[in-house]
């Protein structure tokens, strides 16, 4: 088999594929340093400047280009993501815990939960808006939009926890029970520390998905904008490089989040190892 030639070809292709993936983002990052306020969202760069970054924070003299409405929206998106993260992780862990034993109707429950991540946001968003309308419920980001965010992220948390429990050795729990430790205490002291990396991943999933979620939020959030909705609002008007600058900043924020996750993960793995060593000693 002429594998090396094929390998070289595929390797080159993969490099091109990565260019395809990153190209738009690189262009966007470059153009965010366009001069302002007269510089447009296209090449060439007239002059390099951080004008649009200052513009985001309202540090530039007023111009005809209105600032992105991100202040309040940022707070709302953060709060919504944290609420979603907590609730969907709790729901995910408890549902997955139930799935450790086989029971009748588990297929139905499994697909009911997974359906939450499969149904497109625009459909549940529409359905929720209709429900709210006919029951006379006000639509708010912390109410109708929040429950839909959980519908979306709970399945992810559930699947992550299922995978974790699949590799879980129940004999440690059984040992604790047989020594007369109560189930609640066993969960707190033994089960939870062991599944903690999974819980962390579920939380990361839930937070980032909710933070970026917008098709469910569009119909369900009422008047107040969340961050993605504020960006969506710029679609219908002229795009200025301030959106690009904002994109660069949110990406950096995501990396900070990812970094925190990685640090917590390493910490918990190290602690688990230390515990194992202590037990052996």
């Amino acid at each position: 088999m002429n594998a090396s030639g094929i390998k070289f070809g595929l390797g080159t292709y993969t490099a091109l594929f990565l260019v395809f993936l990153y190209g738009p983002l690189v262009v966007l990052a470059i153009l965010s340093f366009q001069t302002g306020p007269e510089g447009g969202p296209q090449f060439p760069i007239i002059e390099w400047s951080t004008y649009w970054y200052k513009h985001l924070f309202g540090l530039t003299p007023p111009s005809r280009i209105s600032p992105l409405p991100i202040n309040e929206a940022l707070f709302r998106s953060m709060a919504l993501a944290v609420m979603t993260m907590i609730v969907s992780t709790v729901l995910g862990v408890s549902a997955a815990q139930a799935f450790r034993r086989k029971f009748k109707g588990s297929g139905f429950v499994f697909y009911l939960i997974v359906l939450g991540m499969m149904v497109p946001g625009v459909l549940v968003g529409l359905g929720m808006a209709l429900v709210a309308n006919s029951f006379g419920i006000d639509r708010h980001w912390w109410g109708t939009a929040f429950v839909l965010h959980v519908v979306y992220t709970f399945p992810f948390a559930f699947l992550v926890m299922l995978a974790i429990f699949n590799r879980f050795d129940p004999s440690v729990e059984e040992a604790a029970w047989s020594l007369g430790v109560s189930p609640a205490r066993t969960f707190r002291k033994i089960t939870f520390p062991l599944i903690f990396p999974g819980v962390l991943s579920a939380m990361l999933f839930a937070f980032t998905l909710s933070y970026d979620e917008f098709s469910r939020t569009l119909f369900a959030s009422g008047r107040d904008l969340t961050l993605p909705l504020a960006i969506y609002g710029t679609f219908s008007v002229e795009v200025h490089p301030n959106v690009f600058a904002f994109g660069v900043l949110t990406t950096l924020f995501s990396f900070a989040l990812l970094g925190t996750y990685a640090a917590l993960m390493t910490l918990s793995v190290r602690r688990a190892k230390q515990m194992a060593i202590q037990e052996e000693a």
Partner: protein
Amino acid sequence: MAVISYTTPLSVPAARVSRRELWLLAPGVIWMMLFLVLPILMMVYVSFWTQTTFKIEPTLTLKSWATFFTSETYLSALWTTIRIWLTVLVATIVVGYPAALFVGLFVKNKTLSTGLLVLCVIPFWTSFLIRVLAWRPMLGKEGAINMILMKIGIVQHPIEVLLFSELSVIIGMTQIYCVFMVGPIAFMLGRIDPSVIEAAQDLGASFGRIFRTIILPLSMPGVVVGSIFVSVMVLGEFATSAALSGRKVNLLGNIIVTQVGSLKWAFAAVAGVVLTIIMGAVVAALLRVVDLRKEL
């Protein structure tokens, strides 16, 4: 729709739900019933309500459905949705498969292949809407691609069809969704036992032969899982076409957004139900090929 493919495990007879499981499951199940199933049922119900210019009444009628299936706009949106979905689906497979093949099969170093996969996922840490918008300075008349093509001298005049056309929507969606194809395929390829391929090599099989008889069939579950992801996401799309087509490409999702915007709830609901039916059919068909629960 999904229940079709589920088979109860044969080995252990399933126990009845005990009290403990009931308490663990109840919150999640109730949440999904109230905030997922009820809204969808409501959408089906409202699609039969009577829509007048300014309001909607719960008098049941088939009028909205009749309007939908006789209107040029709605039918063309339906056709566009199906056309774009199929095009993007094929494009993500064609674009993604070779990359997945390289990462999943040819990169033997575990760290390197994980690193490459992470590299594919990193763009997802940028907001979805920003990723969509990022295609504008790429594809525009004065965009990066036209600039480069003109500098090299491949074209004399900028290619205008790149932006605000169906092509731009397809390019944008392919880039945004191809990773959902690469991931599952690479995962499946990574699980192939290398000794099977070595055995085929020792017996003198060519790469083409090995690909057709071993690699392709064993990676099919990955293609199907990827197709489910991509299909579900593309069928429910409206933002990419709104941002990149300049309102020229209307998908069913766009129809729903416009109708909700003008408070035509019944028409939005009809479009929603049609979309749900298409999606249900697509996912059910794909799930017949693989059992999702087994592949996880």
